[in-house]
């Protein structure tokens, strides 16, 4: 075991000297995290608010009711409601380029002349919504109008039933009483725990785990480099067990991975405001993730003949697993096959573990830690077999 430490120490010194581990393990992920957080954050911080125009050509009581409800909605959502006088004015307001500084509206509501009378009868009645080039604001407007129309339809049916059963009263007053009847099915909104990582944390964590595989690979690959340079024969001629060589490389790769993760976690927390969560949970996840990376990268290296080949295979595996595991894009949100498939990658488990930690407690990370360890142990055991056989000068 002492020799294993000696080998690990020598290799660590070497890796520090050529700056690749520094670049791959720290500079690249941190640089990308800086860029991602600067481009994605302004968008995350953006809140919904819209501007709506309303044109009342009717002037009747139902139209007045609509305006009142719309005003309430405007106050509730922080949206602007503007009254316009002509259809042309409404259309012009709506017809602006999205995201331009030009003043405009997301949608315009038009209550056509005679709407109130029609609404109070049993005859067909229509109201209009004019939308611009789409977007969230317009969708909300349409559904708002439809909801209002639905309420009116209900009131008409209710008042008609009331009249059919002998009730007799002004339709407007009866309709208003009908609307006061609560809907038989109410919507109870329940707030769920938030286990989704914030944008800042998502990119910090995604990049950290993505590059972790490359950092660990640098460590693993040194075994092949050693064989290539011929120094492996020297090591094997030395009075020690073969496992000491493998253990030495393993220790070194682990240390490289661990140091880079710790630096990244601290740096992204301080610089970009990433929230990694409870340190103990994060530590468990990080250690398990490094073990899984070690196992997988060692297994891949076991199939390569030269260091270059190992580098190629490993980056292929690391990139595919990374993308599939949702480190760059939240693959889980895509749904379907893709979001199930991601769980064949350690990356997905790591991200999920962090999410569960964010919305829960330390024990919540245990399934993810277990999955990561399983990855590491299975691939690691296979790798040991392959490497031991291949451990020839």
């Amino acid at each position, binding site marked *: 075991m002492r020799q294993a430490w000696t080998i690990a120490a020598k290799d660590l010194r070497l890796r520090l000297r*050529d700056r*690749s581990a520094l*670049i*791959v393990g720290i500079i*690249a992920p941190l*640089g990308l995290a800086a*860029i*991602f957080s*600067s*481009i994605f954050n302004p968008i995350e911080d953006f809140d919904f608010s819209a501007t709506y125009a309303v044109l009342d050509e009717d002037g009747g009581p139902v139209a007045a009711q609509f305006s009142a409800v719309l005003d309430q909605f405007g106050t509730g*959502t922080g949206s602007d409601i503007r009254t316009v006088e002509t259809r042309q004015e409404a259309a*012009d307001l709506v*017809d602006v380029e999205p*995201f331009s500084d030009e003043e405009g509206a997301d949608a315009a509501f038009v209550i056509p002349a005679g709407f109130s009378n029609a609404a109070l009868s*049993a005859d067909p*009645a229509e*109201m*209009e919504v*004019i*939308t*611009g*080039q789409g*977007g969230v604001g317009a*969708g909300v407007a*349409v*559904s708002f109008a*439809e*909801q209002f129309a*639905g309420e009116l*339809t*209900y009131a008409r*049916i*209710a008042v*008609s*039933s*009331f009249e059919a*059963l002998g*009730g007799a009263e002004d339709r407007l007053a009866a309709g208003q009483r*009908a609307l006061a*009847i*609560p809907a*038989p*099915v*109410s*919507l*109870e*909104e*329940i707030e*769920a725990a*938030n286990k*989704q990582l914030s944008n800042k944390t998502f990119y910090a964590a995604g990049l950290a785990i993505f590059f972790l595989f490359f950092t660990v690979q640098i460590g693993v690959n040194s075994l092949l480099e050693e064989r290539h340079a011929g120094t492996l024969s020297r090591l094997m001629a030395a009075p020690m067990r073969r496992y000491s060589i493998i253990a030495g490389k393993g220790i070194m790769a682990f240390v490289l991975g661990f140091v880079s993760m710790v630096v990244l976690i601290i740096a992204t927390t301080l610089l970009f405001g990433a929230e990694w969560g409870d340190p103990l949970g994060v530590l468990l996840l990080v250690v398990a993730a490094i073990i899984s990376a070690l196992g997988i990268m060692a297994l891949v290296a076991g199939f390569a003949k030269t260091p270059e080949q190992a*580098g190629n*295979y490993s*980056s292929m595996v690391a990139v*595919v697993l990374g993308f599939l595991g949702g480190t760059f*894009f939240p693959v889980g*949100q*895509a*749904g379907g096959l893709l979001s199930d498939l991601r769980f064949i990658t350690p990356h997905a488990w790591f991200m999920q573990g962090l999410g*569960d930690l964010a919305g829960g407690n330390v024990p919540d990370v245990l399934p993810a830690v277990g999955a990561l360890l399983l990855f590491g142990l299975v691939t690691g055991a296979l790798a040991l077999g392959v490497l031991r056989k291949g451990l020839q000068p």
Partner: protein
Amino acid sequence: MKAFTIAGTNLRRWLRDRSNVFWAFIFPILLILVLGSAFGGSSDPRLGIHNEGDGPLAADLVVLLEEQPGMQVIQFESREDLVATVERGELEAGLLIPVDYDATLRQGAMTSVELVARSAEEAQAISSNVQSALTQQSVVLRAAFFVESEEVGSFAEGLETAETASMNVADVTVVVSSAGEPVGFFQLGRFDASAQQQMLLFVFLTSLTASAALIQTRRLGVARRMMSTPTPVRTILVGEGMGRFAVALLQGLFIMVGTLVFFNVNWGDPVGAAAILIVFSLVGSGAAMLMGSLFENDQQAAGLGVLLGMGLAALGGCMVPLIIFEFFAPTLFQVAHITPHAWGLEAFDVLVIENGTLVDTLPFLAILLGFAGVFYLLAIWRLRRVLTR
């Protein structure tokens, strides 16, 4: 001529390594396909539904919800699963319909459905959709409640008359029309914008890997051996760059044709699009040559290649559309233009959105050529220094 010899050898060596074919052709198409079908589609919010009720009213409600515009509905088998999925942010909201939904309503009692969401703001659009489905469904029931409360008849009588009334009374409807021509961004198809962004990202990223090849050539001593032949440094560099330029070009073409054929992506005027691709590949290979002459070690170059390839692409609008930068973060919009990607994307906008032709893209192409020229000149200067010091 010699540059072609060097380029040919570079290409031949590149082709010998199978993994390169994977990176250049299989991986990008795979990614565009996956991302395109996963995210390129609608950005409509998603509602998960777990329906515990077994009656027709509950089933009707699900149908009504599925018919709501601007929302995707996904059914879930278990409550835990639904809640966990919402918690992880993979759904905007989840709706739980209780076991006794039908029974309670038929008895004339009130019931409720639960809408689970992480935040009210996020679930806003869905919540209003659910509300309107509920309104639609409960019209008759609610009218019966009204009849009962007005004391003109019993709940059962109310149900019956309301049922008849709903046949005779017309619905109040909403007519939606849109003003003006839809422009830009929103007019692009499902894959369009993302295909252009991805193409630029990959062409640049793949080109950057050429830097590792140049580094290897230097480390093998072959670069100095070439220097000892009557071949100027600029020829060596142009040759090494040209090999990879060809790969980048081929890759870009592959992505363009592939997405055109399979997803019908609009690339605009073909001549203009080809010109952008050619010039952009030149920029990529120039950047690679500069990196290859700056660094000593392929692992460093690979790490920095990913940093630069992804980082510049992200900054340049290949991950978040430039128009969003322009609107939300004007400084970022300016910063984006230090990257060649932003200029490439703007050139594509001219073709695709403004229906321009090659001539209209010329200013952008000139700027891109400037990038390529600067990269190559710096690389030649630097390579001469490192090889002869």
